[in-house]
């Protein structure tokens, strides 16, 4: 174990086959409570597949995925997903909804009363540096890429989930904005004690955000370690990745 704390997400000998082709596994992975685990690797290495197993957008062919001490297959998929925040590239914001409607969507699905929803939305928008007074009624396309991303993070946090899944959320923003977002995201998730599983192909981002770095190669974990271990590792793949820094 790399970090103390109960394991919140566990993948045990998980294999995923799609159309007879193995796209993932066998993979073992543990995400301890409060930690940020970053998955790095080239396209097709299984990063996104791993993420989609956790909120059951995909089912493993073999092996077991456990979320909060329950097998993912025992969870009602809708309940499971509402207890997990999901951030994707460009935020995946709904283009026909305003910023506040986007952020308030999960509370709305959960049937929160309007007043409580409104308070939550404005607290969240403040939290991600997008004051509600200024941004609540904007449409997603009236925002910059970085702003959309902030809204995406706020939306994922809306129902106060323990776990956040992030699929290259900062992939489409410029380097300066990206650095800001990373810093703020790291301090936000640390403060809120969120458990984060984060996918990126950016090694620098992985080192900035990760408590644990997992290098995926052809569907298996080729390296698992803290950023310090990553910096010193002789593993050929890690050396290749470090060369990108």
């Amino acid at each position, binding site marked *: 174990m790399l970090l103390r704390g109960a394991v919140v997400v566990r993948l045990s000998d998980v294999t995923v086959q799609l159309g007879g082709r193995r796209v993932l596994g066998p993979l073992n992975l543990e995400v301890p409570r409060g930690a940020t685990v970053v998955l790095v690797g080239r396209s097709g290495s299984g990063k996104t597949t791993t993420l989609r197993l956790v909120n059951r957008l995909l089912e493993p062919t073999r092996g077991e995925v456990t979320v909060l001490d329950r097998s993912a297959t025992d969870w009602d998929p809708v309940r499971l997903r*509402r207890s997990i925040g999901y951030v994707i590239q460009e935020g995946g914001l709904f283009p026909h909804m305003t910023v506040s409607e986007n952020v308030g*969507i999960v509370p709305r699905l959960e049937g929160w009363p309007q007043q409580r929803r409104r308070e939550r939305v404005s607290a969240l928008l403040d939290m991600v540096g997008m004051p509600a007074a200024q941004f609540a009624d904007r*449409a997603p396309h*009236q925002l910059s890429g970085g702003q959309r991303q902030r809204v995406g993070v706020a939306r994922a946090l809306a129902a106060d989930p323990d776990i956040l899944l992030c699929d290259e959320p900062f992939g489409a923003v410029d380097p300066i904005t990206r650095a800001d977002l990373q810093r703020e995201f790291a301090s936000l998730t640390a403060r809120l004690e969120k458990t984060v599983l984060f996918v990126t192909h950016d090694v620098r981002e992985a080192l900035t955000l990760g408590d644990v770095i997992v290098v995926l190669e052809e569907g298996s974990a080729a390296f698992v370690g803290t950023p310090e271990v990553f910096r010193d590792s002789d593993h050929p793949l890690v050396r290749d990745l470090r060369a990108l820094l």
Partner: protein
Amino acid sequence: MSVLDFTLRNGGEIAYRSAQHLLLVGISTAIAVAIGVPLGIAVTRRRRLRTGILGATNVLQTVPSLALFGFLLPLPLLGGIGASTAIVALVVYALLPIVRNTYVGISSVDAAVRDAAVGMGMTEREVLRLVEMPLAMPVVLAGIRTATVIGVGIATIAAAIGAGGLGDFIFRGLAMVDNGVILAGAVPAALLALALDGALHLLERRVDWRARSGETRR
């Protein structure tokens, strides 16, 4: 007889026939929406249905309208002389654009947006109600508009099986070889089509999330 003369002398009947015409189109389009939108949604959910349903509506669309009215006449329940038979035929023609546009509208929703919706824990119904339908609405309404305009045209032929409407003047004019009488039916029908087209276009703009947020329209 000139159109003007005819119109002045028969203003009441023209208004009455126009109302009848509007009713034929309105009722049939409403029924077609009630059938076509769910059908279009079903087509996006079940791959196997797609070819069958889209193919069937396509084929029905190719049947000449006069022939379809003829086919329907001898049928029990659906057929016979009068407005109900005409409405059945008009529903058939309205189905294709509505089913097709519903299908196209929903399947052109960005996969990432749908993915976000499911990943956030929306049920299948919630995805449809809160994300897919609102995003597809402008396209669906465009289909309804096409169906309505086509319906106004085809409804003129419904007079052939005794359904009334503005076609009555056209058939009467043809029989009397009187252009004035033909025009008394044709002109209001054209105006009706234009008016409905315009009204539905306005409605389309109101539900268009792209227009509302000032984005360039397709």
